């Protein structure tokens, strides 16, 4: 019997089906037309979401990956299509989001000739991809795609870009079938767990008087939420999170003591510099978390659990580096440690929390001013959603406020651009987040600045009918930059005064219902209307123009120098 003949394009789509892909975010163009032509026959099996810009496509892919736990898949054409992916790739790289991006490329014989829409996307994306590869012959497609999916999702996940020349997409070849990949000789997804480090960590934890846990997205990426919770509960150790770790442990858990870093909570920041053992789980000591490094947790013994060996000792030297997948290392720690209650130590966090509430939080979520605050909007969202919604944010003040105040009962509920801080991430990521979790409510909290960066994706919402609740917190400023200009640049407000169009009319033109709230007395009803609406909804809330996010660790200061006002 003769082997089945497929085109390269068909082989790409067969690979997707074998990998369990159900949704593709993409935008067609000349060099990827053969794949789109093949897709025409696969519409039953593969849902393609036509975005309005490739950046929107890749952010949607990220949102999808973050809520579904699956690999996000993105299509773009060569040249400008491919370069428009770069921001999203950088974002996915730094936030460890599994993506497989397929870009079209000019015919192989035209490579290097400055052909129409030719760009060297492999070299452009090298620093912002976990792996990338250019396919020039169709016979490479099955095993390269298998490798791409394996690399994207295994170990520390990340974005993979596969560039396929047009001739390879068109080429017919003997299709050998698809075999998934689970081993690459030169690649070790996770380090071997070594008992001596587990033992050393257990000994440190058992001897600790004032231990503290700080956790990041590693817990979520490793699907180790249960293992983590058991570890926290048995050890009785207070746990604080990075914004990417948020929602891995329910926000109302008694040992969840809040957010770390620049706009984090008072207690966890101050007590980082008082604890005796600091246990970092799946986080990478970003400078926004640590503040000034030479004054960061110097008194503490550091235990660092990470799947990526290059993270250990990168920013903070670990006394015990527990290399490995936290889904496997956490249970080993839990087994070894003694069950403890650390009432006095945990109460110290509560004292700080009370102080922060009195001096800072109360006025933010129950303001006495006439102006509305971002904090009170998020509080009302919490009251209606009861912590069940997925919150997607853009970048800036509203992001910090949402991460600080939003409540979460379940994991994979907070989608935000953490490491790269990509303005314009929110709206497209929310679209992807909804496709990744169709049964859940998705609220996109976005500032007036970031919304105007990618608002063309309203068109994607219109065309697909996807249900996203858009909450614009409009302070008529590029708020976070304005806050810094106020605090550190003598109030010289340099180009942060930004005007907005009529968002409600804009939404209407896309067939999306909306409302604008300018007074507090309409707020609660408006939020409720938004969350209970059928289909997408845009709610614009006019908040105080010059409100600041506090607490704050000023840049160049130690975490214990956090300011409440």
């Amino acid at each position, binding site marked *: 019997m003769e082997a089945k003949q497929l085109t390269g394009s068909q082989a790409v789509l067969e690979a997707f089906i074998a990998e369990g892909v159900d949704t593709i975010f993409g935008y067609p163009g000349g060099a990827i037309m053969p794949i789109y032509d093949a897709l025409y026959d696969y519409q039953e099996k593969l849902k393609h979401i036509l975005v309005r810009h490739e950046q929107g496509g890749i952010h949607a892919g990220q949102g999808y990956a973050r809520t579904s736990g699956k690999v996000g898949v993105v299509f773009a054409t060569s040249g400008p299509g491919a370069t428009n992916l770069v921001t999203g790739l950088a974002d996915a790289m730094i936030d460890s989001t599994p993506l497989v991006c397929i870009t079209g490329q000019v015919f192989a014989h035209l490579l290097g000739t400055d052909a129409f829409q030719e760009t060297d996307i492999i070299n452009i994306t090298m620093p912002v991809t976990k792996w990338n590869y250019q396919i020039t012959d169709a016979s490479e497609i099955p095993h390269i795609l298998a490798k791409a999916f394996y690399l994207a999702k295994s170990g520390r996940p990340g974005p993979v870009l596969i560039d396929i020349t047009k001739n390879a997409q068109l080429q017919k070849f003997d299709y050998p079938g698809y075999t998934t990949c689970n081993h690459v000789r*030169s690649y070790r997804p996770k380090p071997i767990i070594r008992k001596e480090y587990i033992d050393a960590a257990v000994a440190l934890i058992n001897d600790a008087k004032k231990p503290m846990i700080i956790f990041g997205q590693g817990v979520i990426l490793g699907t180790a939420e249960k293992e983590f919770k058991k570890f926290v509960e048995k050890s009785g150790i207070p746990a604080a999170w990075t914004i990417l770790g948020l929602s891995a442990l329910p926000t109302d858990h008694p040992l969840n003591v809040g957010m770390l870093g620049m706009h984090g909570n008072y207690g966890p920041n101050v007590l980082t510099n008082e604890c005796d053992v600091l246990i970092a789980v799946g986080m990478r000591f970003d400078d926004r978390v640590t503040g000034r490094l030479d004054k960061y947790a110097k008194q503490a013994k550091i235990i660092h659990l990470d799947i990526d*060996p290059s993270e250990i000792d990168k920013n903070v030297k670990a006394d015990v*580096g527990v290399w490995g997948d936290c889904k496997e290392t956490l249970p080993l720690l839990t087994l070894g440690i003694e069950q403890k209650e650390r009432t006095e130590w945990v109460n110290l966090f509560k004292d700080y929390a009370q102080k922060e509430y009195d001096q800072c939080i109360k006025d933010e979520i129950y303001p006495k001013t006439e102006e509305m605050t971002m904090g009170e909007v998020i509080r009302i969202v919490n009251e209606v959603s009861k912590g069940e919604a997925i919150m997607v944010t853009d970048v800036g003040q509203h992001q910090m406020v949402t991460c600080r105040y939003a409540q979460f009962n379940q994991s994979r509920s907070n989608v935000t651009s953490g490491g790269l801080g990509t303005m314009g991430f929110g709206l497209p990521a929310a679209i992807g987040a909804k496709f990744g979790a169709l049964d859940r409510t998705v609220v996109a909290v976005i500032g007036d600045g970031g919304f105007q960066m990618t608002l063309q994706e309203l068109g994607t919402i219109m065309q697909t009918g996807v249900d996203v609740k858009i909450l614009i917190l409009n302070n008529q400023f590029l708020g976070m930059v304005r806050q810094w200009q106020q605090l550190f640049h003598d109030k010289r407000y340099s180009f942060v005064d930004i005007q907005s169009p009529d968002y409600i009319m804009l939404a209407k033109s896309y067939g999306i219902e909306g409302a604008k709230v300018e007074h507090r007395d309409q707020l609660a009803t408006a939020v409720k209307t938004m969350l209970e609406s059928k289909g997408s909804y845009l709610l614009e809330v006019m908040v105080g123009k010059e409100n600041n996010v506090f607490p704050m660790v000023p840049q160049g200061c130690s975490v214990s120098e956090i300011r409440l006002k």
Partner: protein
Amino acid sequence: MKSPLRETLLKIRNMNEEKQEYTITVYTENQVGLLNRIAIIFSRRKINVESLNTSPSEVQGIHRFTIVVMETRDVVNKVVRQIEKQVEVLKAYYNTNDEIVWQELALYKVLSDEITEKVKVERLLREYGARAVAIRKDFIVFETTGHREETNRLMEALAPFGLVEFVRSARVAIIKESAGFHDKLKDFEKREPGEELIENEYLGKREAVFTM
């Protein structure tokens, strides 16, 4: 007051904080673009690569990079981990100069007239153990191998006698303590890496040198 322990600690601290020459050895798959992937790890951190050699290793299909940088131990350690993290890199090591044996090759093009007429030049070449690799009517090409200073010295000595052209290769280095890569590779090919591939070599002896 000088205690041996204090001495050792100071020495280690200096090793970590002072810039010195490190030779980085990288075993990789033979793949297009990998050179760039490795190069950008250095350029991203604004580290100058003093010398770079890449060629097939003793194991078929495996390439070996030898990279020389002037950096602190701390930075080199981080850079090497970033290199090792690349999908196509099998293993990366770094060594100080006293842990390796290394050579560079140099070629010198000298006018034939100068050599045949001047006894002094002949003596120089003998002294430096230079070997003629090409003899033409108008010029002769000599070759020496050695450390940078050695090949430099002959270049300087030949300069007054019409040195037409000079070129030097990148450093190649053998790690003294290394047992080669054959056995290691077998481990990589297994689905479950064996104990051979020790991951965390640091605990308790953080300052100990890297061994293969």
